[in-house]
């Protein structure tokens, strides 16, 4: 009666039996291994470019230990500085000083988490949102405009600024969803192109008098009103502001949306199998539009976190490279809300720590980009899987393939 009728399910079932241990061990171990591997490679890079190491390397064959110890001290000093700058500074003369670095990490993490959620949400619906950068910029632009032109009492003004940011990003993302839904254009191309359109649009606006400080031609907007800024969460000297609470709230909201709401059910169905979703009466194209508006709005909130949180005014560099970092954040977080949140904090820590590292050991901050991208690459690297999961590796390979397939299907 229950004889196998097709090959594949049987093969799967057979492999399932081989599972040796709870799956979460593998899935938790893997990011950890990836992070470690990336840090090691980053450390090697720091060591290899260190002046003392290079000097020691010139007589490597007569005394190799010099090179090795110089390398070790260069890399460990850099990472130690990074730790001091990102988590805990034991040299601080007060408790506040000591934990200041961690609050800095959370501050930097705020836009990363928000934009990362924007990328993750789109991922879950089977869309590649490479456009967080543009969405942040447009969110920031609209938020800043509302912030420095209108004047209103605090809660209302701030609320409107937040709303404006969400709308700015949402529109920029929604355009992608609409074009994809209507014309079948690929969202990867659309979002990349819209990033650059956003950059140029902002550059243009920053030449207009209405966006510039009075009497100035520098491409920077007037500061947003006090009432448009996030109050500080812990008070001075900490920069941590209520934007972080917004990021926490957004994480919870996205979790609820994806896992507990009808809309999320639809979006996930569209992302996993658009044809089945369509057959089940789910409007796939509408799903694309909704999820891109949502993704854009979340990224737009990251723009608000910059405008009303740390920057206080609009400039060409307001989004830094958060939009691209957000992609790596979402990937490291495996597109789950909690994962994205944690990845955002981690990368926030890298960024915050890198500043300290540069001042303390002279190591250039760009090392963070290297480590960040290596982590994402390593996470996807099957040999690392094998180390983390043993025999389960084969199934996960097929998983990557499948998600790629789903995305391909979504674009069809």
């Amino acid at each position: 009666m229950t004889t196998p009728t097709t090959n594949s399910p049987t093969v799967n079932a057979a492999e399932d039996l081989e599972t040796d241990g709870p799956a979460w061990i593998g899935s938790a171990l893997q990011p950890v291994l990836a992070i470690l591997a990336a840090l090691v490679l980053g450390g090697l890079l720091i060591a290899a470019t260190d002046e003392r190491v290079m000097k020691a390397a010139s007589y490597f064959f007569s005394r190799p230990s010099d090179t090795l110890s110089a390398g070790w001290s260069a890399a460990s000093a850099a990472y130690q500085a990074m730790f001091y700058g990102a988590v805990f500074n034991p040299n601080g003369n007060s408790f506040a000083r000591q934990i200041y670095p961690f609050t800095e990490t959370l501050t930097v993490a705020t836009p990363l988490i928000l934009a990362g959620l924007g990328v993750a949400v789109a991922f879950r619906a089977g869309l590649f949102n490479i456009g967080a950068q543009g969405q942040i910029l447009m969110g920031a632009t609209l938020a800043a405009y509302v912030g420095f032109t209108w004047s209103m009492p605090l809660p209302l003004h701030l609320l409107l600024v937040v709303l404006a940011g969400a709308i700015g990003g949402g529109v920029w993302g929604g355009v992608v969803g609409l074009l994809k839904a209507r014309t079948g254009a690929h969202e990867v191309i659309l979002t990349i192109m819209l990033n650059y359109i956003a950059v140029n649009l902002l550059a243009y606006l920053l030449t207009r008098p209405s966006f510039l400080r009075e009497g100035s031609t520098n491409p920077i907007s007037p500061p947003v009103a006090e009432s448009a800024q996030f109050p500080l969460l812990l008070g001075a000297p900490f920069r941590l502001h209520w934007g972080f609470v917004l990021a926490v709230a957004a994480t919870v909201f996205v979790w609820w949306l994806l896992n507990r709401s009808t809309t999320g059910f639809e979006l996930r169905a569209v992302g996993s199998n658009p044809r089945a979703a369509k057959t089940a009466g789910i409007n796939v194209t509408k799903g694309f539009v909704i999820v891109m508006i949502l993704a854009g709005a979340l990224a737009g909130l990251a723009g608000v976190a910059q405008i009303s949180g740390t920057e206080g005014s609009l400039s060409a560099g307001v989004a830094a490279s958060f939009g691209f970092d957000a992609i790596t954040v979402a990937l490291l977080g495996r597109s789950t809300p909690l994962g994205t949140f944690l990845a955002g904090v981690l990368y926030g820590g890298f960024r915050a720590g890198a500043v300290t590292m540069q001042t303390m050991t002279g190591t250039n901050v760009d090392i963070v980009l290297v480590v960040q991208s290596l982590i994402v690459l390593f996470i996807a690297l099957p040999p690392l899987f094998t180390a983390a999961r043993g025999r389960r590796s084969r199934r996960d390979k097929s998983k990557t393939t499948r998600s790629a397939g789903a995305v391909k299907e979504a674009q069809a």
Partner: protein
Amino acid sequence: MSTATQTHDIEPATPQSEGTDRVDPAALPSTARRAPLGFAVLALVSFVVFALGAPDGSVTFRISGDGDLFRIPDVVVPGLLTEWLITALLVVLTVYAFLRVRTGRLTPSWAVLVFGLLFVAGFLVWVVGAAETPSVSLTGLLAGGVALSVPLVFGSLGGLMCERSGVVNIAIEGQLLFGAFAAAVAGSLSGSAWVGLLAAMIGAALVSLVLAVFSITYRVNQVIVGVVLNVLVSGLTGFLFATLLESDSGRFNSPPRLPSYAIPFLSDLPLVGRILFDQSIVGYFMWLAVPIVWFAVYRTRWGLRTRAIGEHPKAADTLGINVNRMRFLNVLLGGLIAGIGGSFYTLVSVTSFTRDMTSGAGYIALAALIFGRWNPVGAFLAALLFGFASNLQSVLSFLGTPMPSQFLAMLPYIITILAVAGLVGTTRGPAASGQPYVKE
């Protein structure tokens, strides 16, 4: 906007269009109906902006320069009259396109080409006419545009190698940047620009290697790898630039320039002389690379196989073609080609590397590839158009026209969006692009 040349070889043949191009209007692909619509929008733009805002005086386009073999007189056109004439012609073409669709026929390619050229002309007359000195050197405009498009062309051709074999290459930006970096460092260390060029190719191929290993060998999503590679290259070159190149720029960051040659006599011809016959060596390579790649893709065994593994890898596999090996090699080859483009930045354009100096050119190259429909000639023409647009930006800022340069900078991106949305012609990429090939 200026849709230029390559937007229109009609639809890929559909079964019912055999024999006649006249079909039931309802059966026309929806994209076919968008062409007249696009025409109408552009004609309206022409009317409102170019015709109503036409320059009062005349506009001069200089063709000959000093030292030319012989002089071609400047083209002087009356602004108002020209704009109204062009707008009228655009309206006529729009009506024609609508009538064609009504009777169930597609808009012919020549109409699109003419429309595009007229629109560009209208735009030029309008924008130059609005300048303080309504006079511009057409030769300079074109030659500058060609020069700016050199890295874009190589980037597109490199991307084409990958995409035609079924691997999406978002990492063109990373390839150009790493090529530029490698050229600067190797050129400086060796003192030879040629070594630098070679290093650029190998450097970009290294980026390709990572792309290939991850996306082909380990079947990691190609878009993800591409995006991450761009971040990685940006970080790595930025870090090394700050750590090594800046601290000892004499040693690491002062490569010699690649030679330029002006071909005697030919280079003195007006208009074409400066564009075709007075180039850096990389510029000449470009004129060679395009026909070579075209020939290779469409006329050789390698090309047939490459296109096959990009369209239907399994079919190729059943005929004994090693799909993943071929993809791997083609991705590496694509890197070598893109690397030549990277060398342009540090061995031709300027002679030092700066952080993120390609500033998104890789993405424009990707756009050119798509707008050029994955065809080497199409990609080349698209890259030329985009190069021309970015050159116009700087020329116009000298002329002092009211057209904000940022809008011109947006042009390639807007055109690409319109292209992928099917508003200016249809795009149909290699069917298997982006899908890893899994042998059962």
